[in-house]
C-alpha cells in the first residue's frame, strides 16, 4: 500500500477524465476523502494506490496513473466500499468502469486479469453459458501456456472428484449470442 505523496511536477492532468465516468461523475465530486472505502477493502493492503487515493487522483485528472493502477485488478467486487461510503458513491461500479476504460485504452500491464475477463466474455458469446474448461484454455493460450502447470494440481483434483470433464473445446465457429453481442456493439459502439 502506498500512502506517500504523489509528485505532480511535470504531470499531465486531464481535467475531463471525471466526465468519462458517467453516471458516477457527479457523485465522485462529493468524495470527502474519509477513507472508509480503504478501511473496509480486503485487498487494499496489496494495492499500489488505495481506493481513497484513486478517487482523488481521478478528480485531479491523473489518467495514466489511474488506468495503469494495479488497484483496479485487485477489486473482487465485494461491494463493501459501496455500502460503507457515507456519500453514497457507487464505488464498486466505478472500479468496473475504470477496468473497462483501461482495457479499451490498451494498458500494457495486468495481462492475467485482462485475458481472463476476455476469455470469459468470448466463451459466453460462443455458448451462451460459461464453461470453466474453455475459459481456462483460452486464458492460458492468450497469457502463457505454461501457467497451466500452476493450475495442474487443482485440475487433477477436480477431475478425480468428477467436477470437470476433459472435452477439449473447439474455439472457432459461430456462437449462440453472436447476434446479441453484435447488436450491443452497434448500440454502444465499443465492444
Amino acid at each position, binding site marked *: 500500500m502506498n500512502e506517500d505523496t504523489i509528485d505532480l511536477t511535470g504531470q499531465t492532468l486531464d481535467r475531463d477524465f471525471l466526465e468519462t465516468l458517467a*453516471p458516477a461523475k457527479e457523485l465522485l465530486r462529493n468524495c470527502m476523502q474519509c477513507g472508509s472505502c480503504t478501511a473496509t477493502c*480486503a*485487498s487494499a493492503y*496489496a494495492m499500489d494506490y488505495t481506493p481513497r487515493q484513486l478517487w482523488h487522483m481521478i478528480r485531479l485528472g491523473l489518467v495514466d496513473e489511474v488506468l495503469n493502477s494495479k488497484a483496479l*485488478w*485487485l477489486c*473482487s*467486487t*465485494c*461491494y*463493501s466500499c*459501496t*455500502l460503507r461510503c457515507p456519500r453514497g458513491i457507487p464505488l*464498486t*461500479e466505478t472500479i*468496473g*468502469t475504470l*477496468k*473497462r476504460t483501461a*482495457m479499451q485504452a490498451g494498458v500494457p500491464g495486468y495481462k*492475467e*486479469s*485482462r485475458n*481472463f*475477463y*476476455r476469455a*470469459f*466474455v468470448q466463451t*459466453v458469446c460462443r455458448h*451462451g*453459458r*460459461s*464453461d*470453466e*474448461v474453455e475459459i481456462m484454455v483460452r*486464458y492460458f493460450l492468450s497469457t502463457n501456456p505454461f501457467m497451466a502447470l*500452476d493450475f495442474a*494440481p*487443482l485440475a487433477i*483434483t*477436480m477431475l478425480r*472428484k*468428477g*467436477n*470437470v470433464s476433459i472435452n477439449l473445446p473447439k474455439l472457432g465457429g459461430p456462437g*449462440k*449470442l453472436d*447476434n*446479441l*453481442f*453484435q*447488436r*450491443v*456493439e452497434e*448500440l*454502444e459502439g*465499443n*465492444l
Partner: protein
Amino acid sequence: MRYLYYPGCSLESTEKEYDTSTRAVMAALGVELQELEDWTCCGASAAETASRLLSFVLPARNLALAEQTNGERGLVASCSACYVNLRKVDEHVKQEPGLLEQINQALEVDGLTYQGRVQVRHLLDVLANDIAPEVIAGRVKRPLTELSVAPYYGCQTVRPYSPFDAPYLPESMDRILEAVGAKVQPNPMRAACCGGTLLTTKREVGLKLVADLIQAAEGADCIATVCPLCQMNLDSYQGLLSKRLGQPVQMPILYLTQLLGLAFDLPEEQLGLGHNVVSVKPLLAKLSEEV
C-alpha cells in the same frame, strides 16, 4: 410454492452438487422449481469489463425469458453473483431513464422484450423467509445436533442489495441451521469476500482472503456456504494453503443445501458429497455416532 429457477453456469459444471442438492431439498420441502428454459450466463463480473450495456443485456435476456414464462412466480438464483447481476437490472432501470429501452433494443434480435416485472430472489431468501423454520424442522430425520457449523454468507449474497438480510451481519442462514439442530458457531467474517476471481488472476491476494476466512471459522466442524464461487474458493485451495502455512488445513466446506439434505436424510447421489474437495468423512462419522 412454485418458483422459476436459474441455476447459473457453475451449477452445471464444477458445482453440480449445489444444483442437485438444491433441487432435492426444495422438493423435500414441497417447493416446485421450474428451470428457466434456454437461460444464458448472467455476465458475472466479466461482462462489464467489455461493455456497460452488455452487463445489463446479459442478465435482462433471462429476465425477459422469465417474464414470458411464468414471471409472477419469481426467479430464484442459487449463485450470489447471478443474483446480483439479475437484480441490478431493475435497480438501474429505476434510476436511469432510457436504459430499459436500450436493453430492449438489444434483446429485439433474440425476439425478446423485458418490461421489468420479474422479482429476483436468492435461494437463501426463499429458504429463510418463504418457508417457515417449523416446516424445515418438521422435515428433519437426522438432527445435526453434533455438528458445529460456521455460516458463511459471502459478499454478494447480501451486498449491494440487502432486501432480506443485513449487509455486514446477516443471520438468515443461522436460523435455518438452528432449525435442523446444528450448533451455529459465530463467524466474525461471515459476510467478508472469498476473493472471487482473484484466486485465478491474483492468487496470492486471494489465498490470504481464503486463509483468513478459514481461520475465522476455527473450531467448527464445517463452513456452510450459499454461493458456488465461495464454495470453490474455500474448498479447492486448502492443499496449497497447507503447504504455504506449513500445517494441515482441512475444513470441510458444505453447501447449506447439502447440510439440509443430510438432516433430511436424502440420498447421497443427490447431495454429491463426494464432489467436495476437502473430505466430509469426519463430519459423517460424527453424525452416524449419534444414531
